[in-house]
């Protein structure tokens, strides 16, 4: 567990304190994929770097397991950092070293001297990220997606418990992004390692994260399971991110002019998507509906549907009650 207790961060610029992160509390559980989303300058990069103390908090404590990392001395901090892998938007590979030598670097830094041990581990890692045949190339000879795979192999070299992803797919095209995200999801599942990722793309969060926190101008404004935050965004910034990812289900979308009836949004998740509840309830209660907007998709492994309907009929309230009883979330839109 990574636990932020009343953590804040400010920078001293020209003798004045400029706040970067307002005091916040946050728990990140072992083995989950935790997304932190925010616009550039929101402080997400700072928050991520607090976890390996590349940035020191101005206040509060950060616990990893039972260890307060802010209290560690220099050698202990270096040892702690070896248990936390990190990948970067611009990969940050050493141009002067081959792929294999880049992946070997953290092993050497950790004091491993046995060449055959290093070679075996590097081969295993490159195999895992699908780059075994590129071991002796230099980073400049690789595509962006391949470079990020090298970054991932390097980050995994010392068998970390936590992997930090700093906008890891922001420099990649959509197809490569999907491949890298799949790889991260596989690693999370097979190695049981905790992944903390920051991004400005809701789609990245939707694909692989279990839980998410939303940062807005240094304030942690919302956090929860991706399904909750994604389907029922509370804060204006969150709604904006959701509507950027899914324009069709724009949270505040009013009914187009000329549409009659009560406009409601219905959210089906998981098991509720398997039964024809909606049509049965509508038929039984004699309510007519007009479909205004809708989407059926997945959040990570969870299927969901979200429909905005305009309802007309005498027994709308009774119908809504039955739908709620069947596990469907109903929200009245203005």
């Amino acid at each position: 567990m990574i636990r932020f207790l009343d953590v804040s961060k400010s920078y001293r610029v020209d003798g004045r304190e400029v706040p970067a992160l307002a005091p916040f509390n946050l728990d990140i559980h072992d083995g989950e994929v935790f997304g932190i989303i925010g616009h550039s300058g929101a402080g997400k990069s700072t928050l991520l770097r607090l976890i390996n103390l590349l940035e020191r908090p101005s206040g509060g404590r950060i616990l990893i397991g039972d260890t307060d990392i802010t209290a560690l001395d220099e050698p202990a901090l270096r040892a702690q950092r070896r248990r936390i892998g990190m990948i970067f938007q611009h990969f940050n590979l050493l141009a002067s070293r081959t792929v294999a030598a880049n992946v070997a670097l953290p092993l050497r830094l950790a004091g491993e001297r046995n060449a055959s041990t290093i070679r075996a581990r590097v081969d295993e890692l490159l195999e895992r990220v699908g780059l075994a045949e590129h071991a002796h190339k230099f980073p400049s000879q690789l595509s962006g997606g391949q470079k990020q795979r090298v970054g991932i192999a390097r980050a995994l070299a010392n068998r970390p418990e936590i992997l930090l992803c700093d906008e890891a797919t922001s420099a990649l095209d959509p197809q490569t992004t999907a491949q890298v995200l799949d790889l991260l999801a596989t690693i999370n599942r097979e190695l049981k390692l905790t992944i903390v990722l920051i991004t400005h793309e809701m789609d990245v969060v939707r694909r692989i994260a279990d839980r998410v926190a939303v940062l807005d101008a240094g304030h942690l404004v919302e956090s929860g399971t991706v399904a909750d935050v994604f389907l029922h965004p509370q804060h204006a910034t969150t709604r904006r991110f959701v509507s950027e990812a899914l324009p069709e289900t724009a949270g505040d979308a009013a009914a187009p002019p000329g549409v009659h009836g009560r406009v409601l949004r219905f959210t089906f998740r998981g098991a509720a998507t398997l039964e024809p509840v909606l049509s049965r309830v509508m038929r039984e209660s004699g309510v007519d509906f007009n479909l205004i907007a809708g989407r059926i998709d997945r959040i990570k492994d969870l299927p969901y549907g979200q429909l905005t309907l305009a309802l007309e009929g005498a027994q709308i309230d009774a119908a809504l009650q039955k739908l709620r009883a069947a596990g469907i979330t109903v929200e009245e839109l203005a």
Partner: protein
Amino acid sequence: MSTAPLLQSLFPNIQDWGEMGQACVDTLLMLGGSLALTVAIGLPLGVLLYLTGPGQLRARPKTYAATSVVVNILRSVPFIILMIVMMPVTYALVGTKLGVRGAIPPLVIGTAPFFARLVETSLREVSRGVIEAAQAMGASTWQIVRHVLLPEARAGLWAGITVTAIALVGYTAMGGAIGSGGLGDLAYRYGYLSYKSDYMLVTVVLLVVLVQALQVAGDRIVARCKQH
């Protein structure tokens, strides 16, 4: 000998080509010795300047300012003056003020600060992201210097060594004026003081060839470093 009469007619004043050869050897010895020592002193000094500089890994404003001032002072003293001022120190260090041995201490003191600045500049070219990645791996400062900064900056470092070597050729020639020997000594004594312009011509041509060779070799190494 077939070439001797030709050389004789082209360069009538040069009687002793052996002396010319010895001067070449002396120049190369001065260059090699002082370059090796310059790198040995300037490289750590440049790393120190880089690490202690503002916003860097081991930012130490006072250390940086003090080192910086010493480096600047040494760089601003004209080399010929430095040689003369340093004579007692030179004598104490190598037991002579003359010849190849006597030339090396002032050459090193004159160029090491210059090289240190070049080292500092090329280390600053290394991307912060790569350094941050190494920090995130738990690297110590020394490990970052050894495994990241120096290898990543090696093209710039070799370019700096090339520039320094060429500057040293100029300094060794200047040293000739006050008894350090080498090609500069011949050019000065025979070419300048005795108006034997053929001496001047031959030494200058040899120096040009030397500088050219250094530049070509340096460029090759730099290009090889940049291949990736």
